[in-house]
């Protein structure tokens, strides 16, 4: 057996190892009972750490919101629509009526986008661990977070487009390399799916697009994933 990666086990349990170390330690832990047991002691400690919610850094959510909000492509189209509206011949309309219309239009145009609503949803979560899901293919205009509340079932918050007719977004808990079906949604926009499969320490979570009745096993590649909690 290869040398025990003693110094990396804590970071491995924490999910903080970079590649290729993570892959090496993962492969080793699978065949080494003492290292598996040591990793488990760290995971137990992390569970207690997660449950001590008031130790979470106070600026965590603001950082998540800043990251979630970056690059939201809303300003340009909003400006164009607003400018176009101003070019309409409003000169003959009484001033008071014009003001009312302007305010109404501005209100409609200022409705929060899905990106804004997603960021707001994440920002308003309390007493929970939040892990951002990564996009895994060319569909980059998606966002998702896994939320592990201090109390209650874990869930995912997704910003996704509406799936095609007859299709749905399906969440999966990745337990011991086996995807377990964990909830469906046929909606688009900001979507919440409460995980119906148990989520253990070290499990991953993924989202795929499946037939609307759901699948027993994924039939497509994941669009969002967090490999390990």
């Amino acid at each position, binding site marked *: 057996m290869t040398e025990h990666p003693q*110094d990396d086990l*804590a*970071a491995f*349990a*924490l*999910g*903080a*190892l*970079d590649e290729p170390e993570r892959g090496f330690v993962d492969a080793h832990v699978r065949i080494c009972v003492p290292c598996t047991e040591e990793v488990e*002691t*760290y995971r*137990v*400690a*992390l569970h*207690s*750490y*997660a*449950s*001590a919610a*008031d*130790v*979470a*850094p106070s600026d*965590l959510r603001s*950082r998540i919101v800043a990251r979630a909000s970056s690059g939201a492509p809303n300003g340009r189209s909003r400006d164009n629509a607003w400018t176009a509206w101003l070019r309409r011949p409003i000169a003959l309309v009484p001033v008071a009526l014009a003001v009312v219309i302007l305010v109404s239009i501005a209100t409609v145009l200022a409705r929060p986008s899905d990106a804004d609503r997603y960021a707001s949803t994440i920002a308003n979560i309390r007493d929970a*661990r*939040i*892990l*951002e899901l990564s996009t895994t293919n060319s569909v980059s205009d998606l966002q998702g977070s896994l939320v592990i509340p201090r109390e209650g079932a874990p869930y995912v918050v997704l910003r996704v487009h509406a799936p095609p007719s007859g299709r749905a977004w399906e969440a999966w808990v990745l337990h011991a390399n086996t995807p377990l079906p964990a909830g469906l949604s046929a909606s688009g926009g900001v979507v919440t799916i409460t995980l119906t499969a148990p989520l253990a320490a070290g499990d991953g979570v993924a989202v795929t697009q499946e037939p609307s009745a759901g699948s027993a096993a994924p039939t497509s590649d994941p669009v969002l994933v967090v490999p390990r909690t």
Partner: protein
Amino acid sequence: VRAAVRSLPDEQREALDLAFWGGLSQSEISARTGAPLGTVKSRVRLAMAKLRDELADEGTSG
């Protein structure tokens, strides 16, 4: 657990927080904080050991 976390040196707690709550890897923590990667690894290792050992002590004394 709270007491164990609060007793950590600031730089160890920062590394733990950034990894656990922020989802950053050790190299990302290094880039974020400006600390050398080896230093970050030590901080993560020490913080995790402290957390685990405090829990073990709690288990045996309780």
